[in-house]
């Protein structure tokens, strides 16, 4: 229970107070679609926020996909050019089990899709 302290000094009004209150008084303004405009702006800002991360992820992914693919291909080339005996000596059995580029790409898309879907579900 919240207690309300009433300051009686504030409540004592003189002639100037009464005159000022009358002057500053204003009529109630009708809404006339004002709240609808605000609601639209709020919904738009919510929608923009909701879409910002997924869109940034897609755009960033689209920009990064080519250099990333190049990097993966180069890495695979380097690894494949290593002599077999060297890889044996260096104990790198994972070289043979590296997934193909297409598999990596599909996997990335699936992961991104799952993250996106989860985020959208959270919002709703």
């Amino acid at each position, binding site marked *: 229970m919240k207690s309300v302290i009433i300051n009686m000094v*504030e409540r004592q009004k003189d002639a100037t107070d009464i005159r000022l209150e009358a002057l500053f008084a204003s009529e109630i303004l009708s809404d006339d679609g004002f709240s609808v405009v605000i609601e639209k702006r709020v919904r738009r800002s919510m929608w923009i926020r909701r879409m910002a991360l997924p869109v940034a992820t897609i755009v960033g992914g689209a920009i990064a996909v080519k250099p990333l693919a190049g990097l993966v291909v180069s890495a695979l080339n380097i690894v494949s050019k290593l002599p077999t005996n060297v890889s044996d000596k260096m104990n790198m059995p994972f070289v043979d089990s590296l997934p193909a580029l297409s598999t990596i790409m599909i996997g990335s898309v699936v992961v991104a899709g799952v993250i996106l879907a989860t985020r959208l579900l959270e919002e709703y």
Partner: protein
Amino acid sequence: MQATFDNELVSRAVVQHDAAAFGELVRRHQSQVRNFLRKLTRDFVLADDLAQDSFVHAWDKLHTFSGQGSFIGWLLKVAYTTFLQSKRKSKRYDEILQQVGKEAVTSESSYGDSSDEITDLDKFLVVLNEEERAVMILSYGCGLSHREISDATEIALGTVKSIIFRGKEKIRKRFEISDHQYG
């Protein structure tokens, strides 16, 4: 009762991101916020633009409303901050106020003519500096307590009281309001 319903709507808007609940809050308080800004800027179009921005800012900051004071007090604080930020960015407000000041000074209509209340208010507001104007409007136009004005304007409570006293004195002297007029 009204405060409880306001708090319920705020909770719904914050927790459930319920834009409709916020829309209801806007409907309930738009008149007071717009009237406050209209008096502060003396320009209806500018005031309504600022009111829109204020409500959008309020939506963004709604989670910071603690529910301790009244929601309208908090909302008017957001509106006043929006007004100050806009004023820093634009010279439009100063131009309007200068224009209103010139008109109020050149208008020689006698004080006390109740048919011309808006002109009287303009004359009153021109006498006050910006800080006094905001405090007086919040006090006499919006009916906030001194404590709420202090919270809204971030001016110390004692200073708020002295601003109101000073503002009243200025108006009383300038327009020769005597206590027995309405006593």
